[in-house]
């Protein structure tokens, strides 16, 4: 029987992603979405969990990376392992809850039982298997590569040529800046994740995380309703805040440049808490870093950044973007607790709730605009999205980092430039 001719529909990413414009199908095409899961999320480094989420032996979290469900678990020797959430016997899902604690991992189907390091340690009626059956070969399957930086654990399911450090590049400075707000250099992600259904493509969420252009419009209602929010930073086009393209798809909105320009006030990044109300934290920072450096850190605050492809250090929150389909994503949000800063942490928690998540006075409106944009780009015309604001006017530093004004689309172009390289390069190899 003759088979239908194979459709050769290789997508030309170098055409769809141009320097100042993008093709609308990038947000809607199921084939592009499938390519992205493979090329970006499976063949590249993605954030999976933070060390502090699983502090004790037997603690685990279940996370989705690309299309894959993964278990990150801490074993007896204190090591973190990341396994596919699939029983090696006949494929059942091993962990159903998004987090928990187990002394061993037992499959609900036929009770094959695994140690926390993945070894198969027990199965009912083992003698019934043939002589060549080897328990040693039937343990949990770890991901191909796992590495961490500052407690942030990343995985790479289909190994590419980059180390995690090469992938992170200049973005390690952003992680360092966040960790450096703790007197011990450590953070704790222990407050639980809010999970927010977004009716938009994952890349729209990426773009919006580092968009300095939309706040006066999308967040105008909050600016009008909340004086603290309205006054804490300069949102005008003339703001000293820069957006930065770090290369490798990482970018940020560098609010520190605004806080520095505003001068002497510590803690603008907390909404302007009086330092006298945080004596324990301020003292711990002075002791840890010396008064001058502590002062700098407390003026500059945390990064507001997007690390390719799914991790956002969103000031005192961590946000993770989970693609679900071309039109749907889940956004995860957790407040950042700084070790050694209990007095600040209590406030960080309440601040996160006010702004972030499905009921947050900030993010619910971003979600709404994302949905409207997703609906908009489903229309075939105009074909192209315009992404050229500030193009060609960037300042390029000696290390290649690009700087531009708060409202310039330099940060999004940084993402897309890398996206194009990853998507086109892997395709060129496979052809």
């Amino acid at each position, binding site marked *: 029987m003759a088979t239908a001719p194979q459709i050769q529909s290789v997508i030309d990413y170098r055409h769809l992603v141009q320097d100042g414009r993008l093709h609308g199908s990038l947000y809607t095409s199921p084939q592009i979405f499938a390519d992205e899961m493979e090329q970006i999320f499976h063949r590249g480094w993605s954030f999976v969990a933070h060390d502090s989420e699983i502090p004790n032996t037997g603690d685990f979290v279940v996370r989705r990376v690309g299309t894959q469900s993964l278990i990150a678990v801490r074993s007896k020797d204190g090591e973190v392992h990341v396994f596919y959430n699939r029983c090696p016997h006949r494929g059942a899902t091993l962990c159903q809850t998004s987090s928990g604690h187990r002394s061993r991992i037992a499959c609900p189907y036929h009770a094959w039982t695994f140690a926390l390091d993945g070894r198969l340690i027990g199965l009912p009626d083992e003698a019934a298997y043939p002589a060549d059956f080897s328990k040693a070969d039937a343990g949990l399957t770890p991901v191909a590569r796992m590495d961490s930086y500052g407690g942030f654990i990343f995985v790479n399911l289909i190994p590419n040529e980059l180390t995690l450090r090469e992938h992170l590049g200049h973005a390690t400075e952003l992680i360092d800046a966040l960790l450096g707000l703790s007197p011990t250099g450590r953070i704790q992600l*222990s*407050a639980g994740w*809010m*999970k927010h*259904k977004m009716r938009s493509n994952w890349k729209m969420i990426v773009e919006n995380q580092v968009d300095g252009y939309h706040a006066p419009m999308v967040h105008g209602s909050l600016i009008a309703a909340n004086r603290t929010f309205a006054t804490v930073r300069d949102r005008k086009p003339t703001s000293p805040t820069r957006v930065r393209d770090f290369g490798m798809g990482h970018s940020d909105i560098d609010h520190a440049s605004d806080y520095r320009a505003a001068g002497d006030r510590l803690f603008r990044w907390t909404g302007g808490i009086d330092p006298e109300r945080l004596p324990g934290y301020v003292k711990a920072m002075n002791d840890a870093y010396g008064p001058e450096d502590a002062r700098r850190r407390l003026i500059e605050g945390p990064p507001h950044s997007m690390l390719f492809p799914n991790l956002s250090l969103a000031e005192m929150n961590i946000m993770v973007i989970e693609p679900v389909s071309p039109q749907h994503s889940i956004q995860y949000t957790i407040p950042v607790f700084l070790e050694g800063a209990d007095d600040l942490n209590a406030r960080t928690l*309440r601040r996160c*709730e006010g702004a972030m998540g499905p009921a947050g006075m900030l993010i619910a409106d971003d979600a*709404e605009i994302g949905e409207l944009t997703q609906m908009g780009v489903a229309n075939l015309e105009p074909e192209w999205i315009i992404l050229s604001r500030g193009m060609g006017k960037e300042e390029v530093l000696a290390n290649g980092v690009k700087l531009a004004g708060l409202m310039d689309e330099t940060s999004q172009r940084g993402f897309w430039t890398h996206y194009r390289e990853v998507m086109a390069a892997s395709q060129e190899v496979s052809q």
Partner: protein
Amino acid sequence: MTTATLERSTLSDTAVEQFLYLEARLQDEHRYDEWEALWASEDTLYWVPRRQDADPAREVSYIYDNRARLASRIRQLNTGVRHSQAPKSSLRRLISNIEISRNGDDVEVQSNFILIESRRANLTTWAGRTTHMLAPAENGFRIKRKTVVLVNCAEAIDNLAFLV
């Protein structure tokens, strides 16, 4: 129980139920100021936890509004350009399984709700269990504390920018 006390408790139970229905209607119809006026003037808490039995001092909640933040939330909705509620969702909720207990003057009310949200082409079902702490006041009650535990609070949820 004498006839007189039975009548009094029946009457006030009815008053409690009527108060819940009034609150539900004000929320459904986005009558923000009238809803805010149902709250006591201070020391209030409007809490939507992220899981049953959460510790709000250590865990993040969807909503954990003291009186000032509640006022801010209402001010934002009243701007008319809170995009996640502009246009407003069309809402109707049913309240049932009401259980009332009294502690001195205060009334604790537990109830279940099912809420249908229509927004553009999406019809979303919300459900949960609400606990109200009510204090008697002129013309009825004032809300001192309201906790809403959504049945799907541990899963990913849609925008929750309307009043739940």
